[in-house]
Structure formats: C-alpha cells, structure tokens
C-alpha cells in the first residue's frame, strides 16, 4: 500500500517593495499530517539579476529504519545525502523559482511538485514538472524552478539518486549508493558500497571510501577522480575527461579515457595490476613506495619514458621511443600503459 503525500503548500507571502534587494520576510505554517510534521517556510526577495525569486522550503520525516532504501529522481537542483543518527531520515526540500514578478515566480513554484511515496522502509522522492504536449502548447513560458534536496539518513540506507542538471553527493552513507547525473557532478565520500557513479558532462569523485568489491566511476566529458580509496578493483573511465587515481589500495586498477589524461599516483599493491590507457592524452604514473613492478608501456606515435631505472628487455630499434618493457625490483605488480598518440611518463612520486 502506498501513500502519496505531496509537499503541502502554505499561505502566500506578503509582497515587499519593488526595486530593492532586501531581507526576506517569512511566515511559518505548521501542518500536522498524520504523525508527520511539515514545516513550510516561504521566502521571497530579489536575486542579484533583479528578477523576483520565490523560495519554498519544507521538511519531511521518513521512517526508513536503519537499512531503508531511498530512490530520488530530481531534474534541476542538487541532491545531498548525509548521515544522521537514529532510524529516521529527514528530507529538506528547497524549491526556488525566478520570475519577472513575484506573482509570476509564485505561480511557477506551484507548478512544480515533489512526490514522496513511502512503502515500508522504502521511500521514493520524485520531482514533477508540468508535462505533456498540451501543457507545452498552451503555456509557452519557461518554468524557471529548481529543487534542491538534502537528505539526512541513517548510515545503512541504500541510496539511488539521479538528477539531470543537479550535483549529487553522499557522505558517510554505507548502504549501496548509485548516483547518476547528466550534467551535474557526482561526489561520494566515505561510502561502503558503490553500485554506480556516473555523469555525462559532470565530474565524478569518489574519496575516502573502503569497499570490498569493485568500484566503477565514469563520466563522458567530466573528470573522474578516485582518491584514498580501497577496493578489490577500480574502474574509472571518461571519453574527453581526465582520469585521476590517487593513493588507492587495490588489486586491479583500470583507468581509461580517449582524449583526456590519466594520472596515477600512489603505492602499488604486491601482485596488483594497473592498466592505464588513453588515445591522445598523456599517461603519468607516479609510483610511490618500493613495491616491485613489471611495466609494459606502449604508444603508437607518442613518447614513452621512465624516470625510474628499470631492467629492460631489448626493444625493437624502430620502436625504442615508443615502447618500454622492463622490471623494477621483484616485478610483482604489473603496469600496463597504453596510448596511441599521447605520451607516457613513469616516475617516482
């Protein structure tokens, strides 16, 4: 059984004087819906560009339990999820609209809803804009409304969140995390399990995280960064974005991009396998520590160089600048570095 509860809209605000950027006037309306208390605060004022701005803030408690599940689908606006205590989650929603007049801005606010559905320990939160061909034909105006969501939830909550133009972040959430944005960034910190971390044009960053299995992150044109991460294996990819892998502890690292650069820095795991590739970008492997490794670095037309002295096999004369095959120390880790036209540099950090 599901209960649909839309965010309750409270009483309209008093208009302020025109032509000045000034402090907000506020009214707090308290409505009790079943055993949930919804506070709706409304503010109005002018933003810097001298357009009227209306903000509606509401808070909602979700009884998720310690290991609940949250599914968030937003369109324009950020999503931030962080750990809170107890068995309940608190969702704060801030809708912001910008219009030519206060009236205009207020009307637009009313058109955008956040639908919240709770079923047992699972909550679905979806932003809904007016839809359909008919609406678009009859109302040619643009709806300039963004919805920012902040969720404070128990650490064991599983989070699946997507946004189109908003940034998404989770912090200290140990349940499964799957975040996808189209043009916003994705930031995950201190997670326990990452099922997905993707963006198309935004950057993707995973930091300070220790998981047992595989970690994957990808962006098309944004930078993909993994720092201070421990996992069995890492996969980081981009097309035109850069890939940065720093201070990770894994048995396998796969980092690829097409025109971006790949930067790896940190210690190598004994027996670890590190595959870095780019088509036209530069690959920099800055190795710290003293773990031995075997390296095969090849480029079709780019320069390949190692600043670390290696025991090398004899290489084909024609390809001397384009290939390095060598061993450092006991050769336990494997470095597999490939570019087409970009250069490759192996150095000490």
């Amino acid at each position, binding site marked *: 059984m599901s209960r649909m509860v839309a965010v309750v809209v409270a009483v309209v605000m008093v208009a302020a004087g025109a032509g000045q950027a000034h402090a907000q006037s506020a009214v707090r309306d308290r409505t009790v819906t079943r055993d949930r208390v919804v506070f709706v605060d409304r503010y109005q004022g002018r933003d810097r560009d001298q357009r009227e701005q209306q903000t509606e803030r509401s808070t909602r408690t979700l009884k998720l339990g310690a290991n609940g599940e949250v599914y968030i689908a937003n369109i324009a606006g950020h999503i931030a999820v962080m750990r809170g205590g107890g068995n309940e989650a608190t969702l704060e929603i801030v809708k912001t609209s910008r219009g030519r007049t206060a009236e205009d801005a207020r009307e637009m606010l009313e058109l955008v809803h956040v639908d919240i559905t709770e079923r047992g320990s699972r909550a679905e939160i979806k932003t809904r804009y007016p839809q359909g061909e008919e609406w678009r034909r009859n109302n040619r105006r643009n*709806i300039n409304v963004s919805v920012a969501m902040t969720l404070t939830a128990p650490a064991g909550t599983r989070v699946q969140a997507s946004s189109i133009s908003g940034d998404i972040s989770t912090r200290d959430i140990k349940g499964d995390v799957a975040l996808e944005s189209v043009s916003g960034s994705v930031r995950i910190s201190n997670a326990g399990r990452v099922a997905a971390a993707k963006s198309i044009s935004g950057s993707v960053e995973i930091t300070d995280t220790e998981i047992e299995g595989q970690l994957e992150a990808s962006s098309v044109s944004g930078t993909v960064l993994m720092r201070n991460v421990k996992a069995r294996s890492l996969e980081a990819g981009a097309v035109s974005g850069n890939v940065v892998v720093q201070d990770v502890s894994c048995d*396998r690292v*796969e980092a690829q991009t*097409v025109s971006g650069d790949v930067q790896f820095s940190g210690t190598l795991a004994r027996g670890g396998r590190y595959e870095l590739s780019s088509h*036209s970008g530069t690959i920099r492997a800055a190795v710290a520590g003293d773990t031995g490794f075997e390296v095969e670095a090849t480029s079709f037309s780019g320069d390949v160089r190692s600043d670390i002295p290696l025991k090398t096999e004899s290489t084909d004369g024609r390809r001397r600048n384009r290939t390095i095959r060598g061993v450092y120390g006991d050769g336990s880790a494997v470095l597999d570095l*490939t570019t087409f036209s970009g250069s490759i540099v192996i150095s000490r950090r």
Partner: protein
Amino acid sequence: MACARHVNAIQELVDGTLGSIRRAELELHLEQCEPCRRLADDLARIRDSAASLEPLTPPDRVWLQIAGRLRQEGRIAAPTPLAAARRTFMPLALAASLLLIVGASLYVLYPRGTAPDEAASAGNAPAADAVQGVETEFRLAEQHLQNAINKLQEAAKADDAAIDTQIASTLQKNLEVIDQAIAESRSALRQEPQSVPARDSLFDALKRKVSLLQDTIALMNQMRKGDAAGAAQIVDSANKS
C-alpha cells in the same frame, strides 16, 4: 480452500513426477474441486513462469578478470588466443546499469561492450574452435563493430529531439573525439598493418563508440519515459535565463 490432503499430489503433478494411478485419481478430484484446480493452475503457472525467466548474462570483463588472476597466481599458462589478440581489456562499460531499449535484435546481437566474436563464443560453442587466422578474425570483428555503430547512429538520429540541446552537444562532441581516435587508428593501421598498438587502439575506439551510442540511446529513452524531455527543455531555459 484447497484440500490439504491433495496439496502434495498437486505439487508432484506440477513437478511431473506423479505416478499414473495417483495422477488419474487426482485429475478426477480436480474436476470436482474448484479450489484445488485453482491451486494446480496457479502452481503450474508459477513453474512455467520460472522456467521462462531469462538467463542473465555476465559482463565479459568477468572472464578477463578471472583469467588475469589465475595468470597472476601462476595457475594457468599462456594467455588464451582471444586474450592474446586483444591486449587491452574491455573498455569501461559506461552507464552499465541504464536499460538499453533499442530493437530487441540489436540488443541480442550486441550485448554491452562485447565484440561479436566474444559474443558468439559466450553463447554455446567453446572459443577453441573456429580459429580462422587472427587477421580475418580482426577484420570481421571490426566490420561487426562498425555495423553496430551504424545501426545505433541511425537509432540515435531518429529521435534526437528527446535530449536537451546542451547535453546533446556534449555527447556529439565526445562522439567526435572518438571518431577522431578511430580515424587516426585506421590510418596508422593502413601504414603499419602489423602494428599491435594501432590495432588495439582501433578496437578500443570502436568499442568506446558503441558504448557511448548505447548510452546516448538509453538516455533518450529514460528522458522520454518521464517526459523528462519536456522538463529538460524547461531546465535548459532555466540554465540560460
């Protein structure tokens, strides 16, 4: 309510293990007892539905990871012919969790991130047979990848209204980045047909393109589903204003 004393027999009937005498007795009973009949029908439907659940396919990288580990541990000898031919691992499966809702045949032909030779051997016949010679294998694989790319591009063009212009432009630019990589690799391969880096580079780039096109189409489908396209247009103007 179904008769408790017949439940076991009904289950065995669904299992197909009921002896002929008991079966005849049960069928007689079922003609007269509606709740039992309903139970039998339901359990049979459940069994049939279970039997027709699609087999799920693991991503190809799993085999490569297994082989890599076993090699590291010294448990297996030389790399398999397929692995030797393709030095670098499978390209990153971008957006692997997005559903691909393109024509069913296309999806079946080209499961995510798979080169067709690998897809074929993932099915039934062991990879060992049908070794045609590495060169032919590559040429065929390249052809298949290119066909996949052409089909996907058609599908993407057919519905480019679904995606917000800014996002579409980002995707287009990145497709061009990959196209350039493909062109450079092909040109290099023409000059040095034996070059392993050039060949690896070409295949990587072709697979990346398939991947990106699949993701683009999946994105279009997602956006169309929630009429998020409309919302995206709204967002677009929100970003600009």
